[in-house]
């Protein structure tokens, strides 16, 4: 038997195996899932875990931002779009013009934590105080304006840490805390949730906001009060879940119409105890009380 013959046998075997695999995968279904970078890690974890539940359903996950995901849903190129903000009226209208009818599913909550350096004596902020720190024209420029003195902070200047201007987190903070006013110029605009926490960790003068999932031992999480002088609430999965934490945002998935068939099954599984435990493990709040053992 020559090498050539052996190769022929091998390739025939390979072809047959491939055909068998394709034949066996006739009922194999692919769900295209795209969108928010906040949700991408969770979506990936869901997709992996779902392989064990339904080996014949493959979920292809990609990020790119909430806007990207919603645009793909409008164009009909994805089955599920992930978003860390609600769909805009403009986008909804565009979708309807394209014959799509996006249906919103809340799949979890994210508490937006306000991070400060551990040496900072501040423990709590009211939303009004945050707005004075962050909003254009806000009067708080120095920690002494807030009545504290931060050790190790030169001139007591508040180093305001924010996000790049097309991040979903940035948009939510602007809406929920600044009432859609502009941010101050001169904020340090970090390019990722983790970068915000990193900078605050190393900078006594800094204050920053980022998802609760990015908390580390080297930063302090501020207690947030909805009104000045009011009771403040610590950010946690529990307070995001019961709605008492004032800056928790819902995380969405959008499908085209009510999901049916294998997409419907996948959405139901995400909302099940098992699916919700995965989002809890990733540091976000589940939609319902869950028992993760």
């Amino acid at each position, binding site marked *: 038997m020559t090498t050539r013959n052996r190769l022929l046998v091998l390739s025939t075997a390979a072809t047959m195996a491939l055909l068998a695999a394709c034949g066996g995968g006739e009922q194999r279904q692919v769900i295209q899932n795209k969108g928010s970078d906040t949700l991408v890690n969770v979506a990936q974890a869901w997709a992996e875990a779902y392989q064990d539940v339904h080996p014949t359903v493959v979920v292809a996950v990609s990020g*790119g*931002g909430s*806007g*990207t995901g919603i*645009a793909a849903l409008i164009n009909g190129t994805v089955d599920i779009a992930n978003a860390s903000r609600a769909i805009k009226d403009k986008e909804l209208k565009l979708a309807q013009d394209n014959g799509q009818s996006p249906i919103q599913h809340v799949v979890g909550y994210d508490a937006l934590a306000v991070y400060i350096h551990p040496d900072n004596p501040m423990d709590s902020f009211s939303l009004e105080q945050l707005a004075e720190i962050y909003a254009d024209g806000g009067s708080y420029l120095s920690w002494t304006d807030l009545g504290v003195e931060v050790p190790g*902070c*030169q*001139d007591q*200047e508040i*180093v305001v840490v924010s996000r*790049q*201007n*097309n*991040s979903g987190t940035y*948009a939510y903070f*602007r809406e929920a805390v600044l009432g*859609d*006013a*502009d*941010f101050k*110029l*001169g*904020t*340090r*605009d*970090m*390019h990722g949730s983790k970068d915000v926490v990193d*900078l605050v960790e*190393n*900078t*006594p*003068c*800094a204050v920053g906001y980022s998802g609760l999932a990015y908390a580390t031992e080297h930063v302090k999480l501020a207690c947030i009060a909805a009104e000045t002088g009011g009771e403040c609430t610590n950010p946690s999965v529990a307070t995001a879940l019961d709605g008492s934490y004032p800056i928790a945002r819902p995380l969405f998935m959008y499908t085209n119409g009510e999901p049916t068939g294998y997409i419907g099954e996948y959405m139901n599984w995400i909302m099940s105890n098992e699916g919700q435990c995965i989002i809890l493990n990733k540091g976000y709040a589940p939609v319902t009380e869950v028992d993760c053992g």
Partner: protein
Amino acid sequence: MENNTSAKVSAGIDPGFDQLNRDWYIDKAVQVLVFIGGISAIVFIIGIFVFISKEGYGFLVGEFNFKEFFFSPNWRPTSESKETFGILALIAGTASVTGLAMLVAIPFSLGTAIFIAEFSSGKTREFLKITVELLAAIPSVVWGFIGLAIMNPIIIQTFNVPVGLNVLNAGIILGLMAAPIMTSIAEDALKAVPDRYREAAEAMGATRWQVIYKVVLPAAKNGLLGAVLLGVGRGFGETMAVLMATGHSINIPTSVFDSVRALTATIAAELGETAAGSPHYQALFTIGIFLFVITFIINLVADLVVRGVRKG
């Protein structure tokens, strides 16, 4: 045999011409390939310019307001109330970082170039040249990381300032990044000075320092200026390291300890998640056109200056 046949074919057509055999075709094909290679740079640069102009065109004829764009520090492309596209603070950021980088890089690279070209020889010289070239091979994201993780705490502690991500940090990083290319070009310029100049000066009784200071440097000044200009071009165009080391804050700096934001870094940070075709997207491309024009002018001037020395 083959030659014979083709010799017959070509005989009488043009005796001065190469024979129409296989080699002739290969020769022609290689000529064409080399020609395409030669003009490809021009084709690409025109292609890139056409592309960024096309993407930025909508903004230039629409929202673009010359006075706001160049003289307002308000860069608020996603504002809910009123979108503004002012890049003054970004220009100030890029200019301040590049300026400081040159203050760091010029003494550093000129000193290295003078030492390599005038004082060292043999193994020392080769070793230094290779080291300088290695410095140029460090990826810019690694430089940025050094700025973020190492320089940041050092600057905070040394100068007792609130944040270490600022003009000083980015300027030093960028200076070190620009130094290798400046060193190489400056060294070439020094070596281009004919040895008879040095010999003549030494014959007049000049010391080594006097030879360099009074004779070699003035003779090489165009090449050295070209080296500095190329360094400036490098500084203007650098993205990743300045994105990481400047603090990315829209701010017109009043001291080297202020955080700033560079033009390039703004494009890098925002373009990825901007809806294609929106005014914000087009405004970012308009910044791209602006950067392209600036670096083009700098490189052109540098080239003309260097060329000037060769003629003289």
